[in-house]
């Protein structure tokens, strides 16, 4: 990500549980002759448009040893085309009163601008040019690699939690590249250069590997003619199929412990390899979204059993990223109340899961979760960015526009039996990764142990 964009990340997280809605966005879609897919979500409340180009390529499409190249390229995309000199892209957008940024995930890379509706033509022209005419100089590429290394320090290495997150992902995936950090391992980032980034660009950036998403105050006819004008002439190019190494069956539970002097509060995390909407046992995916909602809401099972009253945890939650090109994870996390142990929290968490696997969820829990998720689909219409983001994440991970639009119906149809079947299929401790992030053992304790030995 080029600039801190946490808001965007959390938005996406919110949408992962509840992607958009049937007969809510009513998107218009078409495909240009060169294969560029176009999605328009009309919203005429304000004379503003959100313009986004999403590429069907992300960190999980990198070659082994070149982790971070997708994200480094995202930074270099601001470093010049024949008509927009290096560093000028964002300045031009700003001079037009607009805002722009970009982001990289494991499965996609996106670029966006928010502008007044009459500036759409301008940003489309610039975005189209960098789709096929990126020209970056060595002099610009080198300091940008230092920026990326600083970004890695800021995001990851400054925080033991983030560092441990990387270790957990790496343990979760034995073979699949989801085990690599999106920003890249530090030693591999250092070995990147302009040539490698441009090779990645030439391999993956093409109109037929991209999706244009516009949300806001523009009509389908206007957008169609603008899209033809700016993107229509970019030649189609062959792009490699997205064939990533897949995971072998997990036979042994994996447990990780990290101790760090900077940690003052222990935390527990648990993840299970899980199907996404488009990979693995995908019939379980929507029920898993419902299950996550049931587990983690403010009065949900995790709260009632782990946090409320004299429960051992200060906080507990679950997270399921349903939009992923390959198998994803179902995640649980908790941290002990001061004075309580992480072991106690894990025992209590396992008890919640054991009961869930034995009895399933109640009709009341299911109804409440569905209610909240359906309302979420209506509230989603209140955000231009969120609407565009939902379609982008879905379409770059193999989901169709119709499947996104059908979300409320899919949620409505989920039964208790399906939630139970999904839980039983995924929440098997033998196929889990459990992490304990702990403070450094105290000097005093260490000494005591020595004496005891």
């Amino acid at each position, binding site marked *: 990500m080029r*600039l801190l964009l946490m808001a965007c990340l959390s938005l996406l997280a919110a949408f992962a549980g509840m992607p958009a809605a049937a007969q809510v966005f009513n998107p218009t879609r078409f495909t240009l002759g060169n294969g560029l897919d176009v999605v328009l979500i009309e919203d*005429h*409340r*304000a*004379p503003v448009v959100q313009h986004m180009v999403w590429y069907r390529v992300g960190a999980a499409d990198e070659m082994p040893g070149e982790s971070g190249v997708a994200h480094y390229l995202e930074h270099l995309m*601001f470093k010049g085309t*024949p*008509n*927009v*000199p290096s*560093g000028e892209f*964002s*300045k031009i957008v*700003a*001079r*037009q*009163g*607009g805002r722009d940024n970009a982001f990289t995930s494991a499965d996609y890379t996106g670029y966006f601008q*928010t*502008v*007044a509706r*009459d*500036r759409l033509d*301008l940003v489309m022209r610039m975005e189209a040019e960098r789709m096929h005419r990126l020209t970056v100089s060595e002099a610009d590429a080198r300091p*940008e*690699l230092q*920026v*990326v290394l*600083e970004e890695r*320090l*800021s995001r990851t*290495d*400054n925080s033991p939690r983030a560092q441990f997150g990387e270790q957990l992902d790496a343990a979760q995936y034995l073979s699949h590249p989801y085990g690599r950090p999106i920003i890249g391992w530090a030693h591999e980032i250092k070995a990147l250069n302009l040539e490698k980034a441009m090779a990645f660009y030439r391999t993956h950036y093409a109109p037929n590997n991209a999706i244009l998403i516009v949300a*806001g105050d523009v009509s389908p006819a206007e957008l169609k003619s603008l899209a033809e004008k700016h993107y229509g002439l970019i030649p189609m190019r062959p792009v490699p199929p997205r064939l990533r190494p897949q995971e072998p069956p997990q036979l042994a539970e994996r447990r990780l412990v990290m101790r760090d*002097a*900077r*940690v*003052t*509060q222990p935390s527990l995390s648990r993840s299970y390899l899980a199907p996404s909407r488009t990979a693995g046992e995908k019939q379980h995916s929507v029920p898993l979204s419902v299950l996550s909602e049931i587990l983690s*809401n*403010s*009065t949900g099972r995790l709260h*009632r059993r782990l*946090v*409320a*009253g004299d429960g051992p945890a*200060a*906080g507990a939650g679950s997270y399921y990223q349903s939009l992923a090109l390959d198998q994803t994870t179902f995640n649980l996390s908790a941290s002990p109340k*001061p004075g309580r142990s992480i072991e106690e929290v894990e025992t209590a968490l396992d008890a919640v899961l054991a009961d869930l696997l034995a009895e399933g969820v109640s009709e009341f829990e299911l109804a*409440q979760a569905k209610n*909240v998720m*359906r*309302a*979420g689909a*209506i*509230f989603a*219409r*209140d*955000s*231009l960015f969120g609407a565009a983001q939902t379609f982008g994440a879905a379409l770059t991970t193999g989901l169709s526009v119709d499947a996104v639009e059908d979300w409320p119906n899919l949620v409505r149809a989920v039964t208790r039996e399906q939630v139970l079947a999904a839980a039983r299929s995924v929440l098997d401790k033998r196929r889990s990764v459990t992490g304990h992030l702990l403070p450094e053992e105290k000097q005093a304790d260490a000494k005591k142990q020595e004496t005891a030995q």
Partner: protein
Amino acid sequence: MKQALRVFFLLVLLLPGIAFAGPRIERVTSASGIEAWLVREPKIPMLALQAMWRGGTASDPEGQQGRAALAADLLTEGAGDLDAEAFQSALRDGAISLDFDASRDYLSLSLRVLNDQRQRAFDLLAQALTAPRFDDEPIARVKAQAEAAARRALNNPGSMVNRRFLATAFPNHAYGRESSPTLESLPNLQRADFAAYSRAVLARKNLVIGVVGDISPDELRKLLDASFGKLPAESSLVQPPVIVPKTTAKPLIVSYDNPQSMVVFGGPGLLRDDPDYYVATVLNYVLGGGGFNSRLTEEIREKRGLVYSVGTQLHPMLSAGLFMGSLSTRNDQAGQALALVREAFARIAQEGITDQELADAKAYLTGSFPLRLTSNGAIAGMLAAMQASNLGPDYIDRYAEYIEAVRIEDIRRVAQRLFASGDLLVVVVGKPAGIDG
């Protein structure tokens, strides 16, 4: 290539200025005298409400840091006949989002609800405002969470640096104390304290309300009466005295073993009603507020690759104006980065800004302002903030005018006022090289 460039920029320049008519604001007053600013928006069957009460964490008595913050959390943890679980479950049943949050100067309320659950939402809101329970269970739970967070904050570079910065800038003042509970203050926070704060802050004269939604003024009046109408007239909280942030001769270094140094720098800024507020807004954009268009980003990130992000902000609080910026960089580069910051401050104080910079800043600030107003929730927040700052309902339409009125000589004057002394408060958390503390 050069020629193509020129053609391109010419095309950019030919674009017309941005004309944007703001949303139509209706001032709605209920029978009991509750006023709200309403924007009717029928396209989505929902309502967004933002309310703000003057009196936030700065009202925490000494030794009771976190009183307002925890009370805000507890207001939705049981009210009237409903205990915490029943109250939260009722919110969930209606897919109602109802949250209180305390900042330094305000207690804020955000409500978001679908049309068909509106009555239920305002019933629950009325209960939270007039009959919060503050039961033992949620208090113990919220305090345990706060204790865990306080322990985490002890070793979080961002918390560490802000704590030290504010304590130094505002000695013996409420703004210099923590706004979250601390390990020391938690034992001093009891049920009676939360109840006292909520009774003191939840009144009518210190309240402003913004509403956006699919609702008529008459319907809104009824709901306002039923929820806010029963509050007492006056708040008993006292705003802390106005204070000018202090600076120090030398940087303060908090030694911490981390790969990067986090550097926070700043000094006196402006109050919101300062006549130079818009001048300072433009100045801040050019110096460090404008992301990729700011001088600090250009010098420190783009040219030298020393940071991922560097920026400055104006914080116009009710009792102090603060100018503040931050960056993070590898420990061995900290001295170099800070020197570049000082250089940029000195240069802008001495030379002001260029005509081009002024034009670019104005274009961005006037053009991007309406982009903030694309969601019902954001507009409701703006309506409340406008009232809190005593801005008229025409503020949205006149914002561009205020910015366009800024002249280059104004910028020079305000840059000198803020930066000519060279005094900066600098706090560093890390193991910085090249900085003498």
